[in-house]
């Protein structure tokens, strides 16, 4: 208090150049720091957006599925030869696949050769008849009638409609085209050199004679008189080819009444050949192809066929595993936290325990998997691939997180509350269970949910205990063989079929949705019960 005078004498210099430079430098430093911060956040946001949009773009198509909606004659001799109308028998022995196949063949009566028939059948999924089987089994009166049912397409056909096939370009003919026949190998003559442009695109030799097409070139077809002709040899004003869809007549087609159709991707680079593409395009023109929400993705288990594979088994497996984890973790974790925070004597032993809990939280998860393999499977002989063991392993993994979060929550309750309770004669335990614990509960719940979210996304330790198996059946108990969502994603990402790529991304979206949901709940809990003391 006595240095007021000396302080006034040594006042700060605001005016000199050095002082101004100092202020400038300070402003520069602050601007620089703000820029670093913005740059860091910008880069993170960019990566996040790129990753999320990539996953969503890849995964969204898997949530819909193309089906062929067609009329099917439910032939009693194929479905119920004994005429017993017993639903169980119908389900078990009825040859619904044949019904669906016959219905499709009826749409393309010109297909007779064995290999062509097999190609036609290949646009249907192996589960194509599932919807029909359900309908007929639940209502046997439909036998002998004609029903309209959705028929599942094969993954390749489905992907074709989702745009992973070829671009189809149609050019209207300018001259009059005359086909030489309605089926088999025919020749089409045009009056105004309609084929010249296409010929220029594929020409390999300089000679003026017609050019033979091969499967390394874009495919050319002619749509004429209600039929489709695949061109095999092309000149400027005439083309030779095979009829894929029969023509209604061999009459000349007027300009604008016929089209040159190009499948831009060469046949050799596609999974579906020209014949199949032609059938699919034809079915689409007839309005029999529909895009529907892919419920099957959520209601069926894993499958080797992409169009049949779903995540139900993995979801139930995850739920059972997390249930085991939660039931083990929450009581043990909270009890451990309360003991360490409030009751344990502060000595060497508790200190070592505390340090080790913190260290355990940083142990790589695969180590817990090895531990689970050695202890739970090999020593205790628990079943392999079971949610019980998965839950035990994940409980070990999450326990340190829950203990640490719970201790932090307990520590955050002001000591004055405990003192108040002790002051009115509550015992230490009463003070904690009546006052401190309820106030710490939102924090404990937040920590638990975040720990559970961590467990939900965990893959590596579950690989070690055999939850990586191909499991079609939905697990019904914690001892059934099961897999979990992240492992399902891991399994699918490994498969070569293109159909599984979209499913992998879709499963990731479902997993992310659950994680967001859990973390959102944690945030809401924290907001809702946050207290200011």
């Amino acid at each position, binding site marked *: 208090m006595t240095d007021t005078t000396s302080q006034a004498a040594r006042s700060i210099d605001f005016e000199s150049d050095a002082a101004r430079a100092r202020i400038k430098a300070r402003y520069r430093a602050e601007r620089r720091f703000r820029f670093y911060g913005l740059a860091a956040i910008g880069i993170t946001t960019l990566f996040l957006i790129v990753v999320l949009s990539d996953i969503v773009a890849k995964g969204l198509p898997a949530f819909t599925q193309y089906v062929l909606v067609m009329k099917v004659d439910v032939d009693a001799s194929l479905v119920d030869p004994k005429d017993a109308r017993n639903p169980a028998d119908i389900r078990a022995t009825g040859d619904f696949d044949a019904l669906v196949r016959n219905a499709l063949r009826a749409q393309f009566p010109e297909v007779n050769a064995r290999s062509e028939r097999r190609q036609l059948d290949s646009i249907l999924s192996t589960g194509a008849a599932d919807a029909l089987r359900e309908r007929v089994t639940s209502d046997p009166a439909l036998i002998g009638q004609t029903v309209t049912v959705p028929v599942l397409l094969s993954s390749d056909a489905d992907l074709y409609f989702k745009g992973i096939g070829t671009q189809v370009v149609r050019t209207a003919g300018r001259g009059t085209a005359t086909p030489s026949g309605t089926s088999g190998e025919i020749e089409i003559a045009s009056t105004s050199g309609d084929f010249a442009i296409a010929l220029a695109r594929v020409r390999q030799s300089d000679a003026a004679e017609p050019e033979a097409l091969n499967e390394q070139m874009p495919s050319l077809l002619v749509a004429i008189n209600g039929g489709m002709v695949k061109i095999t040899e092309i000149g400027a004003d005439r083309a030779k080819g095979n009829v894929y869809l029969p023509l209604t007549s061999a009459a000349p087609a007027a300009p604008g009444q016929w089209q040159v159709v190009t499948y831009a991707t060469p046949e050799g680079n596609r999974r579906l050949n020209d014949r199949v593409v032609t059938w699919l395009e034809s079915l689409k023109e007839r309005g029999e192809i529909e895009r529907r929400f892919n419920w099957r993705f959520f209601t069926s288990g894993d499958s080797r066929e992409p169009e049949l594979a779903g995540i139900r088994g993995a979801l139930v497996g995850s739920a059972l595993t997390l249930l085991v984890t939660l039931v083990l973790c929450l009581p043990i974790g909270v009890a451990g936290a309360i003991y360490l925070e409030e009751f344990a004597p502060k000595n060497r032993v508790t200190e070592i325990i505390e340090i080790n809990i913190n260290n355990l939280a940083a142990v790589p998860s695969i180590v817990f998997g090895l531990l689970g393999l050695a202890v739970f499977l090999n020593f205790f002989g628990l079943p392999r691939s079971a949610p019980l063991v998965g839950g035990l392993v994940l409980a070990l993994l999450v326990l340190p997180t829950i203990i640490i979060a719970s201790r932090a929550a307990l520590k955050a309750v002001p000591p004055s*509350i405990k003192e108040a309770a002790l002051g009115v004669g509550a*015992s230490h335990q009463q003070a904690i269970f009546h006052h401190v614990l309820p106030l710490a509960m939102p924090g404990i719940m937040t920590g638990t949910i975040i720990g559970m979210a961590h467990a939900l996304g965990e893959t590596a330790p579950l690989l070690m205990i055999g939850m990586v198996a191909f499991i079609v059946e939905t697990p019904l108990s914690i001892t059934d063989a099961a897999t979990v969502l992240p492992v399902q994603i891991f399994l699918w990402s490994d498969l070569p079929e293109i159909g599984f790529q979209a499913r992998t991304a879709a499963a990731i979206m479902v997993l992310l949705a659950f994680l967001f949901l859990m973390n959102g709940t944690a945030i809401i809990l924290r907001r809702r019960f946050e207290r200011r003391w």
Partner: protein
Amino acid sequence: MDAMVQPATSAGASQTAPAKAKVVARDVNVYYGDKHALKNVSVDVPDRSVMAFIGPSGCGKSTFLRCINRMNDTIPIARVTGKIEIDDLDIYDKSLDVVQLRARVGMVFQKPNPFPKSIYENVAYGPRIHGIARTKAELDEIVASSLQRAGLWDEVKDRLGDSGTGLSGGQQQRLCIARAIAVGPEVILMDEPCSALDPIATARIEELIDELRQNFTIIIVTHSMQQAARVSQRTAFFHLGVLVEEGPTETIFTTPSDRRTQDYITGRFG
């Protein structure tokens, strides 16, 4: 509860001469680890009166206060020696249940610390865990009378379900006093109960202390010498862990016998 609180006696008669001592402390020493925080404190607190502990910060007055209901037990490194008796009962006796002791010796803290529950629950908690009320009606009765005696009833009677933390600072502190007297203690310890309050709220608490003196033995730690002079009958002055001087408040403030007491109350240090 009524069994524990005897009707008011003629408290005014014993303003200067101590009546029968309620709390007797002999050679109390407190160590926090290696630190010797309280040295050989011996003091008698007379029944149904207010005794003030004054002294500069860190002099050990709060430490001593917390010995009287064994709140120091909650600090692991604290160690207490010596003897404190309440009505001839040694409170550091091994067979004594510390929870029962704290029901007999209530405490009001420096910062108002109501439970983050309803006003009703704040007051009802103590009686409930001690099984004082057998029926809901009895509990209601205890809550009402406690709030009345704490001078808070008229302000909160229509909103007993509201949160105790929603009250003003002075109301919260009176709620804490109501909570303390609801378990029917014999002694109430107050650790700077007005330090977080404005002058008007402080005046109300001081009036309340004066009224409570009829039924309770009150020990108050305060930094305000005016407060000590206003509310207490006897005053003890602590300095550096030593009880320097103890006597009737009037004597301490007019003719202290120790030089340090005189320096402190005239504002020479502290």
